[in-house]
């Protein structure tokens, strides 16, 4: 959340991105469930879902790119 603009348009853009992500997560979850209940030994099949869902949450919801700018900048 680095853009601290007070305009509602900016807010809507951000929130829209959130909705898209949430939608993707919901779809992934449902597909994951279907895969798990149809495939015989699903462990390996499910790992990509975990990685994808985790990655989405980290990147969009948790702003993991923050980490790049954390160093005090004295170097």
């Amino acid at each position, binding site marked *: 959340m680095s853009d601290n603009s007070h305009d509602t348009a900016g807010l809507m853009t951000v929130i829209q991105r959130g909705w898209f992500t*949430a939608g993707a997560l919901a779809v992934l979850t449902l597909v994951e469930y279907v895969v798990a209940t149809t495939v015989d030994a699903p*462990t390996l099949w499910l790992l990509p879902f975990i990685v994808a869902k985790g990655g989405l949450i980290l990147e969009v919801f948790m702003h993991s790119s923050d980490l790049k700018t954390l160093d005090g900048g004295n170097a």
Partner: protein
Amino acid sequence: MAMTTTPEAVHSRAEATYRPAANRLGLWLFLASETFLFSAFISSRFVVSGTDQPEHLNQGLALLLTLLLLWSSISAFRAEAAMAHDNRRLFHREMLTTIVLGALFLVGVGVEFNEALTDFPANTIYGSSFFMLIGLHAFHVLTGILALGVVWNLGRLGHYGSDNHWPVEGVVKYWHFVDLMWVAIYPTLYLFGGS
């Protein structure tokens, strides 16, 4: 940019809580540490019982809980975005939504625990892992709800603004982290064993 905050820091050591880089890094490190705690318990489940799972798992409830938590994630996300854009009304509403969804999640866990007590009690090996992992996660949900409550209240009292909303960002990040852990716990307990 550590030194830009120095004048404030020098004059009031304990007041110097608004060091954005330090706060962010501190929270990320804490979450990294927590990840190790969760991975210890998750790997314990695989060490003692592989991917075995019992017959009587309430898959419907678990899927519902998963989606509930996901929904609370987006409302938390909206709350944070709202505060970053000084939209207090939206912040207020979404914070409350998140807290209510979190509470509903806990109620769901309660129902699930109740069923589990008869289907796979704690003195079975799957039951041990189940109660341990769900319990650990529920504990984090509970602390998350308490923290959300504190931040919601302070936001209501007008403590935050677009240029000063670290506590909102922090607590929401923690809430997403709890969701992130569920992403791993859910298949670990319910899906890896197949149907």
